[in-house]
């Protein structure tokens, strides 16, 4: 009877050979029994099932390899593991250091990858450019003029597509009972073909060419429509005047997209003011170009110049300067500092751990020498040693690599929070990280293992067995160098943190020439007011009401507050003098701003609300006063370059810090909001200690303004504090890692010292017998290390001076490096070394000589 053998032949491979035969026979017998009763197909099915039932672990063959080579190789792992356990302290120190160093490096890698991934998915990326302008004095400015993109596309055939991307305001929209506000972006129709964002519903191209068709994001769609389809539904403006039909739904812009949007409307919907302001003289438009494949922007230089000549003002020296979109993010990214900090940390920690590694290894070599000697006698070859040591070191390296990756995964939310990034936890990211870490730790481990192998295995067998090391001095020289390196790095880190903290506290406490305390600022978003005129009156009444409260010192209107000034500049001339095209930053304030914020007038006077006819007047700050080359304010006027109208300069405000103290104070001009003002920000200065009263009052009466939005306010002093957040973060990181660094270095030194002292225990015993005191011996033992530390300190000072000044020079207002810092960090290091090495030495020195001199 034919049996279907093939299922069994697979199973035979895993079965214990002793059982295979009779089991096969049994299965065949069963099969024939089945055939007698059932049709063939059913019998076969039962046969298959029987075969499956045979698969049971007890019946498997032994999978152990019998080959000697494999056995020996695997034995190495056992050995390696045992060795690591034997020298637990060393292993722990190495592990710790490696994990930390790797963790920093891995985070660095992830941040670098993240930054590089910005905008990477657009298929046209290589041909996309951000339109920027270059000015010989003001350098690169990443905006251009409003009509530029269109005109360039018209006149230059190599420019295939162009779009603007402008997000001036938010838009309130209503659907049934839901009323929400989102940021609105205007784009040209070419946006659809230039950039690639996933279209979840609808037709993007069509939506961008049809009037009153709106494009929304996925989140928005969920907010208004839940899980229903959005396309075709209609959203209204709250006052009922406009309606928009949803034309398309796009995916939410990913975290690594430079282009962020919530609502998109095509350019035909732009508001009136933009049609006016968007001329050839104002440079605020974000624009993008797509060039023909293979065209470089340089080749179009002449054509650009032609357009500039035709449309720019006579003396406008700006030039079109397209920046490759692929590079754009790295040029403007605020994460550059993060990268720098992480690189420093990764390098320093890795350096320290690596040094520990080498030092501990060489220290151990004395003990291992005997092991190597014996093995050689038994017939081991150099290859064997190479393999053995490499495996040992690789084990530690790979283990630390794995732990570091896991830690990196676990800490992702913290890292994201701290550095304000958006690193993903997705497995695809982690896969290549695992592979990379595994491979690199493997390679490093193997290489690191080669060193002791080569070093130890070369020794004369007899010498090894005797435990005699002739070239100890050379080895010690290397060790000493490495220790000095470690400690220099640590000192630099510690002093560095002191310097950073000092600079930060200097900046935070510096006199701003401005009173930032006790000021709360209410933001008035004009798009949230249904009727502009009526709202203006309501807001003015609101302000009056607040002003009359006993706990309110004063109120003021301003377009912007210090800390939030726009990048709004213009060029101004002195109509009666020599100054031409002076670059001034602009903002608008009312007459109350100066007294409310405690600004000082050094020449002339402030705006005066009571003079109802006062108009066409401005204030400037001290830097502007100097820039105009004036010595007095008498009869001075100022005129925007290219404009006809002149304005009288009423007074000069003392320079005050309106942004981080790290930045220079630029020359500024302050426009007058008029005697009966209303503006975007309402400043309220409340009396000392009355902050709760003030806030409660605002909350209670906010509805008076008729705004659709809820009360939005912030405190002026917190705004300033926030400016220094990134420096504080840097400071925190460097401080933490300096602690880590010194900790690791000390661990290493401690282990090394322990080892050396153990070696000299007999010597110590003898010295004691000869009459030396514990203290003398301690001094003797510690002396070497102290000398090393002192050398490290001396080396680090000039390095510190250089690095410290480099760092501080980025701040417009900076401290001088206080020598006290160096002294303090030196003291810290000395104390730590003294405690670790000194205590160990003292313990050894206090040992009863009878114990230490005992024959083993």
């Amino acid at each position, binding site marked *: *009877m034919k*049996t279907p053998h093939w299922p069994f032949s697979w199973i035979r491979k895993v079965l*214990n050979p002793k*059982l295979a*035969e*009779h*089991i*096969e*026979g*049994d*299965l*065949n*017998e*069963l099969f*024939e*029994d089945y055939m007698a009763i059932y049709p063939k197909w059913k019998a076969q099915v039962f046969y298959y099932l*029987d075969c499956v*039932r*045979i*698969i*049971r672990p*007890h*019946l498997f063959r032994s999978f152990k390899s019998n080959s000697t080579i494999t056995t020996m190789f695997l034995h190495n792992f056992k050995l390696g593991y045992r060795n690591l356990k034997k020298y637990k302290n060393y292993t722990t120190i190495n592990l710790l250091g490696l994990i930390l160093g790797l963790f920093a490096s891995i985070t660095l890698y992830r941040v670098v990858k993240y930054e590089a991934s910005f905008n990477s998915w657009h298929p046209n990326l290589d041909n996309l450019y951000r339109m920027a302008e270059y000015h010989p004095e003001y350098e690169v400015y990443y905006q251009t003029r409003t009509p530029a993109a269109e005109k360039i596309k018209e006149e230059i055939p190599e420019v295939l597509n162009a779009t603007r991307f402008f997000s001036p305001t938010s838009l309130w929209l209503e659907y049934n009972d839901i009323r929400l506000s989102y940021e609105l972006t205007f784009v040209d129709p070419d946006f659809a073909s230039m950039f690639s964002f996933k279209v979840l519903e609808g037709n993007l191209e069509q939506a961008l060419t049809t009037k009153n068709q709106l494009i929304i994001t996925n989140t928005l769609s969920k907010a208004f429509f839940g899980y229903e389809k959005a396309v075709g539904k209609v959203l209204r403006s709250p006052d009922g005047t406009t309606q928009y039909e949803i034309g398309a739904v796009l995916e939410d812009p990913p975290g690594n997209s430079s282009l962020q949007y919530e609502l998109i409307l095509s350019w035909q919907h732009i508001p009136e003011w933009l049609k006016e302001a968007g001329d050839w003289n104002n440079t605020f438009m974000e624009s993008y170009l797509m060039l023909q494949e293979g065209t470089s922007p340089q080749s179009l230089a002449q054509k650009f110049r032609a357009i500039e000549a035709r449309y720019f003002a006579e003396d406008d020296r700006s030039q079109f300067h397209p920046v490759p979109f692929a590079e754009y993010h790295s040029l403007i990214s605020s994460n550059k500092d993060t990268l720098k900090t992480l690189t420093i940390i990764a390098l320093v920690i890795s350096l320290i751990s690596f040094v520990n590694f080498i030092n501990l290894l060489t220290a151990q070599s004395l003990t291992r020498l005997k092991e190597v000697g014996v093995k050689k006698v038994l017939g081991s070859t150099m290859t064997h040693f190479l393999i053995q040591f490499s495996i040992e070191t690789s084990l530690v390296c790979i283990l630390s690599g794995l732990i570091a990756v896991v830690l990196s995964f676990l800490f992702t939310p913290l890292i994201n929070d701290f550095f304000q990034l958006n690193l993903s936890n997705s497995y695809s990211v982690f896969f290549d990280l695992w592979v990379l870490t595994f491979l690199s730790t493997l390679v490093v481990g193997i290489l690191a293992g080669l060193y002791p192998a080569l070093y130890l295995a070369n020794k004369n067998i007899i010498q090894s067995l005797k435990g005699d090391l002739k070239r100890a001095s050379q080895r010690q020289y290397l060790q000493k160098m490495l220790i000095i390196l470690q400690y220099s790095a640590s000192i630099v880190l510690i002093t560095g943190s002191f310097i950073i903290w000092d600079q930060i506290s200097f900046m935070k406490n510096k006199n701003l020439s401005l009173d930032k305390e006790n000021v709360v600022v209410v933001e008035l978003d004009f798009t949230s007011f249904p009727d502009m005129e009526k709202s203006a009156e309501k807001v003015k009444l609101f302000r009056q009401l607040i002003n009359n409260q006993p706990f309110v010192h004063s109120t003021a209107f301003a377009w912007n507050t210090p800390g939030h000034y726009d990048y709004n500049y213009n060029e101004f001339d002195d109509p009666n003098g020599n100054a031409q095209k002076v670059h001034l930053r602009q903002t608008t304030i009312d007459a109350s701003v100066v007294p409310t914020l405690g600004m000082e007038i050094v020449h002339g006077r402030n705006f005066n609300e009571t003079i109802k006819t006062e108009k066409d007047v401005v204030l400037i700050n001290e830097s502007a006063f100097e820039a105009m080359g004036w010595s007095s304010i008498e009869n001075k006027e100022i005129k925007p370059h290219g404009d006809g109208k002149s304005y009288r300069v009423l007074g000069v405000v003392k320079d005050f810090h309106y942004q981080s103290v790290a930045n220079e104070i630029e020359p500024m001009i302050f426009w007058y909001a008029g005697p009966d003002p209303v503006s975007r920000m309402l400043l309220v200065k409340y009396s000392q200690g009355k902050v709760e009263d003030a806030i409660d009052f605002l909350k209670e009466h906010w509805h008076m303004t008729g705004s659709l939005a809820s009360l939005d306010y912030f405190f002026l002093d917190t705004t300033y504090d926030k400016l220094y957040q990134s420096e504080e973060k840097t400071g925190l990181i460097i401080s933490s890692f300096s602690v880590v660094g010194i900790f690791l270095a000390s661990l290493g030194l401690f282990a090394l010292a322990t080892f050396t002292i153990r070696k000299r225990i007999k010597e110590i015993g003898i010295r004691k017998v000869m009459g030396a005191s514990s203290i003398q011996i301690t001094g003797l033992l510690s002396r070497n290390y102290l000398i090393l530390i002192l050398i490290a300190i001396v080396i680090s000072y000039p390095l510190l001076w250089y690095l410290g000044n480099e760092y501080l020079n980025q701040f417009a207002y900076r401290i001088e490096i206080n020598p006290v810092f160096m002294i303090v960090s030196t003291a810290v290091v000395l104390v730590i070394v003294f405690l670790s090495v000194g205590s160990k030495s003292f313990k050894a020195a206090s040992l009863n000589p009878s114990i230490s001199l005992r024959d083993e």
Partner: protein
Amino acid sequence: MKKTQLGEFEEIVLLTIAVLQEHAYGIGIKKEIENRIGRNVSIGALQTAFKRMEDKGFLTSKLGEPTQKRGGKRKRYYTITTQGIQTLTDIRQIRANLWSAIPESVLNYKL
């Protein structure tokens, strides 16, 4: 009381092997158990039981003559060892002790 090392299934298999004497081989044992007990026995479970009990020393086995019927594959015959018999006897003793300790009233449960 000696510690017994047999599970319920293993005990039955061992008993069956003792019953069948020199005819105790894989399929034979399987059929015998199925006839007596009435539940299906899996080949895999059976083979595992054989191996385990042989490792423990309750069975010995030897290969027989090849027959045409099994495609030329030999049968493996199992014989119970003295140790095996001893274990079975011990188990039986334990059971018997327990049974005799049950009071009449519980055994004669009639509603």
